[in-house]
C-alpha cells in the first residue's frame, strides 16, 4: 500500500515535470516565433483614438525616434493592426519626458515632429499627414529617409506658436505641448513655467490666448468632448477651456503612466494604464472593459 502511494506520487511528480517542461518549451517556442511576443513591449504615446470602430495609436521607436501608427479594428487583437511608418516622431528627452503630440482629423494625422535631426527647424515641425500617404512600417529600413521627410515634408502650416514660445522662453527644460483639432481648427497648447497659452489657427493666421496660470511639472494633454476643450496636467487635474474650470479626472495613478482613450464613436473618454496595452493579444474593446 505504502509502495503504491510512492509509485502514485512518483507518477504524479513525473507527470508534473513533463507538463512543466512542455509549458516551458511552448513558452520558449512562442518567444521565438510569436510576433505578439516581439511586440509585447509596445507602449503607445499619449492617446488612443477610436473612430468608426477602428483604433489609432502611435508608438515611437526609441532608437530611431520615428513613429509607428497602428490602425486596427477595436474588436480584434492589437497584434492584428496594420502598422505604418510615420514621417514624424519624437526623442526621449534627458530631463523631462515629452510624449509625442498627435491627433487625428479627417483622415489625416496632425502632429508635432520633435525628432532631432540636422535639417529640422521648429517652423516646419507641425505636420498634417494624410493617412493615405503612409507606407507600411519596415523595421529594416534606414530611418534617414523618414527623418528627412519629418524635417522637410507635410508642413503647410508653419508652427509659429513654437517659434514664438522659444523666442519668449529661452530656458525650456519644462516646456510641454499638445495638439488638437477643435471645431475644425488646429489648436496648439503650450505650457512653460506654469504658464499656459492656447494657440489656434484660422484663415491662415495664428492667434494666441492670454497667458493662463496652470500648475504642472510634466506633460499636458488636451482633448475635445461635448464641444468643450479639456486639458489634463501631470498632476491629474482636468480642466475645461475657456475658463479653466476644474473637473474630476478620475485618474488615480501617475498621469504619465496613463493613456487617454478618446472614443469618438460614443463621445466618451477614459484614462487607461498604458501598460494594459502591452498585452497585444487583447482587443481594445477588452482593454476598455477593464476600466468598468
Amino acid at each position: 500500500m505504502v509502495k503504491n502511494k510512492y509509485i502514485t506520487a512518483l507518477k504524479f511528480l513525473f507527470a508534473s515535470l513533463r507538463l512543466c517542461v512542455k509549458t516551458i518549451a511552448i513558452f520558449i517556442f512562442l518567444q521565438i516565433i510569436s510576433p505578439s511576443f516581439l511586440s509585447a513591449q509596445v507602449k503607445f504615446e499619449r492617446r488612443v483614438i477610436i473612430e468608426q470602430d477602428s483604433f489609432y495609436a502611435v508608438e515611437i521607436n526609441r532608437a530611431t525616434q520615428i513613429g509607428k501608427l497602428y490602425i486596427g479594428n477595436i474588436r480584434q487583437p492589437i497584434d492584428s493592426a496594420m502598422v505604418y511608418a510615420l514621417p514624424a516622431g519624437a526623442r526621449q528627452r534627458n530631463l523631462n519626458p515629452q510624449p509625442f503630440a498627435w491627433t487625428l482629423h479627417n483622415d489625416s494625422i496632425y502632429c508635432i515632429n520633435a525628432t532631432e535631426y540636422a535639417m529640422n527647424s521648429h517652423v516646419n515641425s507641425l505636420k498634417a499627414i494624410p493617412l493615405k500617404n503612409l507606407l507600411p512600417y519596415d523595421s529594416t529600413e534606414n530611418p534617414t529617409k523618414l527623418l528627412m521627410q519629418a524635417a522637410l515634408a507635410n508642413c503647410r502650416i508653419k508652427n509659429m506658436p513654437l517659434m514664438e514660445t522659444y523666442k519668449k522662453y529661452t530656458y525650456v527644460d519644462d516646456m510641454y505641448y499638445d495638439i488638437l483639432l477643435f471645431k475644425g481648427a488646429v489648436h496648439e497648447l503650450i505650457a512653460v513655467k506654469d504658464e499656459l497659452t492656447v494657440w489656434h489657427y484660422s484663415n491662415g493666421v495664428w492667434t494666441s490666448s492670454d497667458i493662463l496660470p496652470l500648475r504642472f511639472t510634466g506633460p499636458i494633454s488636451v482633448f475635445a468632448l461635448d464641444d468643450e476643450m479639456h486639458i489634463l496636467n501631470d498632476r491629474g487635474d482636468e480642466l475645461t477651456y475657456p475658463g479653466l474650470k476644474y473637473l474630476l479626472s478620475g485618474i488615480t495613478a501617475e498621469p504619465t503612466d496613463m493613456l487617454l482613450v478618446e472614443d469618438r464613436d460614443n463621445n466618451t473618454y477614459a484614462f487607461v494604464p498604458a501598460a494594459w496595452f502591452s498585452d497585444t493579444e487583447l482587443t481594445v474593446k477588452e482593454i476598455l472593459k477593464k476600466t468598468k
Partner: protein
Amino acid sequence: MKSFFLLLFSLIVFGFASSQNFEYDVAVNSVTFSGDNMYAIHKDDAYAYINNDYNWKDDGTTIAAAFPSGAYIQATATLTLTCANMPTDIYVRGTGPEGINFPSQHAAVGGSTITYPATASVIPFEENKVRYFEHFTIQWEISFDTIHWYAAGSSDSRVYVTWHDAATESPGTYGEFKYFLSVFHIACKNADGATTEEEIVEKVWSDFVDHSVLNYYDLPLHYYKDIYTFNVFLYTLLKDRDGECYTWAQLFLAALKINGISYPNNYLNITAAYMPNECGTPSASGFLVKTWTFVLPPAGNCDFMPYTNIWDYPSETDTSYLFMYEEVVDEPGILGQTAANPASVFGNHQLAIIGDKIYDPCYGVIYNSVDEIYENALSGWWYYDYGPESFAGIDINGDGDLDDDPWFNIFRLTDDVHAGEFDIYITSW
C-alpha cells in the same frame, strides 16, 4: 672545525634553499577589482555592462575599472602554484602603483589554486584628483611565512579615477547620459592629474581642439563620416563612431559629468528662424557652415536668395553633396572631428555652455557669444524650393529656354551671413 664545516654546509644548503623562489612554479592567473564606489561601466552601446568577472587575465585580456577619487580599490587574485607538497599556509600580497598596495593576506588554497581574498588597498586614490592609469600594474608575491616573499608575476589593466562622484545616470534604455566606457576614457585620460574644475574643463576640451577624439580602443570618433548619419544619441556616437552635432555636444558634457561637473542650462540649441521672403514660402531653411564658395554670378530670380544650386538625384554620396547645377561650391573649411569637410547644410546646431563660454565640440571651437557664430562659422543661408525651370529662372538643362517642365529641387542661397537669424533655446543635459 667540524662545527665550522657543518655551519658552512648548512649555510650553503639554506642559501640554496632560500633561492628556490625562482624554481617555484607560481603565477598570477586573474585579478578582479571591486569596491563600494566602483562604477558599473556600460559598453559603448547603452544596453550592456562590461563584463566584470575579472579585470586582468593571464591570457592577456584586460577590462577597465573606474572609481571616484578618494575610493579604496579592492582586488581579488587567483594564482597557481605547482608544488608536490602543497603548503596549507600561503600568503599573498600585491604592490601597486604610487603606493596603492594590497596587504598580505592569508590565501585560500584549493589544489594548486591560491585565492587572494577581496582586499582593499592600503591607501585610497588621491582625493579630488583625476587619474588615468593606463597600466595599473600590480606585482604579486607569495610567501609561506610572511618573511620571505617570492615573485608571482604581475597583472596589468586600465583604471580610471574621476574627480568627484559622477553625476547620476539618466533613466531608461536610451537615456543619454550613462557611464559609458569611452566617456571614462576621454574624461580621465585627458584630465589626468587635474585637481580643479577649471583644469578638468580645459584638459578635456583640449582633446576636441585637435579634431581627433579617440575612444577606449584608440579608434577615432567621427562627425558626419556618413553625410546623412541619423545618430543623435550619445550612445550612437560611441557605438557607430559617427554622429551629428547633438552627440558631440553631449560627449563633451558627458566627459565633464563623469567627473561630477554638471550644471543646468548647459545645452544650447540654435535653429534657423523663420525666413519669409519675396520669392515664395520656403519649405525649409537653414544655414551653410564654412566653406561654401560663391563661384558663379547669380543667375536666379530671387533677390533675397540670389544664388542657385539644383540638387542632383541622388543628392549626395556618403561624403559630399551632389548638384546638377551649381553656382556655389562646397569646399573644405572649418575642420570637423576627424573630417576635413563634414556636412555643412544645416537647419540647427547644438553646442555646450560652460560658464560664460559656448563650446562647439563638433569643430573644436569656443565662442564668446552666439553673435560670433555668424561671422566665424557661416558661409551663408539657404532655403529649399521645388519647381520647374521657369520657377528657378535658370536654364538648367542648357537648351536655351526656361520652359522645361520637370520639377527640380532648387537650393536658393545667399552669402549674406546675416540674411537669416538663429532662434536659440537652452536646456539642461
